[in-house]
């Protein structure tokens, strides 16, 4: 049997080989199916998500329309913008906790005795979860937001580009979460690091207000982080769905995916070194 196995080559070739990509694609499909089997979780997440949008909308409805006009945005746009940033957050889930648990329980070792990367399998699994949730939540939230605001401020081009922007934003989020989870190897817990990342995403990613409305200095700081690619980029189609804008934010997301993947590659290498020297973490 061993002779019949087609051996993979060097680490990078290994990762990009057809066999590895087939494994990752299979893992993605399993993640998708696994998320679908947990229907109670899906329903409760969607319920919490819809309630949050309702609460957020009622807060903005208390702000005089003239005040919003001054900063150049309408009530419906701000509600839809928030609904889309929250969509990424709810779809992504807490992958970092899963990675942290694998480290704590020693389950991680089951992956290290296999000829594929833990990070690739875990990432593919969670991207499967995330894409399933995006597919389920997006139509649902569109109905909820349309019912609350009475309009749909997303253009046809916006709708067409939205799935891709949401998936790419989620990929950025997944890469960040895996890094945060792996950091538990050095800090014993990943939660403090996650708190910092979460707060940074909230502020610098433009979770509640588009970063284009931020003061200039804060915008400069925000654009220098991956968080706008995660949250602002997909939600910004509510404000601007021109061809140039969509091309710009797609380029931004792809750039940050490469940067985050590179950073994760380094963190993963350090993590493996740490694991291989100490056994358990």
């Amino acid at each position, binding site marked *: *049997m*061993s002779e*019949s*196995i*087609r*051996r*993979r080559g060097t680490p990078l070739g*290994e990762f990009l080989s057809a*066999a590895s990509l*087939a*494994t990752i694609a*299979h*893992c993605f499909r*399993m993640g998708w*199916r*696994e998320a679908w*089997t*947990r229907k109670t979780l899906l329903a409760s997440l969607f319920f919490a998500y819809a309630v949050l949008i309702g609460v957020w909308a009622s807060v903005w409805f208390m702000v005089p329309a003239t005040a919003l006009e001054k900063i150049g945005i309408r009530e419906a746009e701000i509600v839809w913008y928030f609904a889309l940033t929250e969509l990424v957050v709810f779809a992504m889930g807490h992958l970092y906790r899963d990675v942290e648990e694998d480290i704590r*329980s*020693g*389950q991680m*070792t*089951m992956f*290290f*005795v*296999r*000829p*594929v990367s833990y990070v690739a399998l875990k990432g593919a699994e969670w991207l499967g979860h995330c894409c399933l949730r995006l597919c389920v939540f997006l139509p649902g939230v569109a109905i909820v937001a349309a019912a609350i605001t009475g309009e749909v401020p997303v253009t046809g081009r916006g709708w067409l580009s939205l799935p891709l922007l949401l998936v790419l934003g989620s990929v950025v989020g997944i890469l960040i979460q895996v890094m945060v989870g792996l950091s538990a190897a050095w800090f014993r817990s990943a939660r403090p690091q996650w708190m910092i990342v979460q707060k940074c995403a909230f502020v610098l990613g433009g979770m509640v207000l588009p970063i284009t409305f931020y003061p200039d200095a804060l915008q400069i700081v925000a654009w220098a982080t991956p968080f706008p690619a995660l949250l602002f980029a997909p939600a910004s189609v509510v404000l601007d769905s021109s061809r140039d804008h969509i091309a710009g934010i797609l380029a931004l997301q792809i750039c940050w995916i490469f940067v985050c993947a590179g950073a994760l590659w380094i963190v993963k290498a350090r993590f493996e070194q740490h*694991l*291989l*020297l*100490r*056994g358990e973490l």
Partner: protein
Amino acid sequence: MIIAVESLTKRFEQKHSEDFTAVDAINLAIRAGERVAFIGPNGAGKSTTLKMLTGILYPTSGTASVAGHIPWQERQRLAYDIGVVFGQRSQLWYQLPVRDSYDLLGKIYDLDEVTYRARLGRVIEVLRIGHLIDQPVKSLSLGQRMRCEIAASLLHRPKVLFLDEPTIGLDVTAKALLREHLKHLAEAEETTIMLTSHDTGDIEEICDRVILINHGRILLDRPLAELRADFLTHKQITLVTDEERPERLFAQAEESGTGNSRTGVEGAEIVSHDRHRVTLSVDQNRHSVNDVVAEALAKLSVRDLAIENAPLDAIIRDLYGARKGVGS
């Protein structure tokens, strides 16, 4: 040799105390097809050795070769030639049918479709899991899940199978079934097994050689047949009876002068007793377990009966005694 280890040492640096040597210059040579029990008390160095042999831990010094690979330098290549089962860790996806996890493993190990189907059919047949593989893992009993875990480790037909407490938590029937399947499969395919377990039943029924490790050093390395004759001689019989103080049956025998040991049955001793329960230790070299049980069933109203191997700790204590004896 499929596994060859020379002077393998692992020393852990500790910040606030002296360095700790978990494995201290051990040497091992295991032939292809051997089934070896690697035993020792907690903290003896078993897991550390297994981790180095599976490539997930760097040694401090020494060399090792497993299926022709240096484990810590060729971890990913080695992965194609080894299977690993850690009793308390799962490789199956909890929410999905077992078959999905197998399909994924087929992709991970790069098995072509024909090879994968043939191999899956073979492990399903031998481990008798045909009726389980389309059920979600979460619906399986622990015994069923462990059979499926072992099948998962064997799908790529590894040359060496590392088993860490494979029967932990299983009931008596599930343990017996699992041991039988494992032995059968290993014999049929000449798979080398390296097993760690605190259950002497696993050792007796699966392995043909025993290596004892403690404080990071190998204390004993002998064929099981020799060891069984010397040490694995005692069985523990626990009886729960309707009568009060069942130990009196054996004590009476002693009083009547029909036996010459503490229990009145040669080679049997009372380990413990309470109001409706008695536990006996029977030396099988001196007395048949069947006879003790037959006598108990004839004279007592037995509600429950359990026959177990002597605890590994007791055997290890005996082994220590022997080693010290040899040493002195």
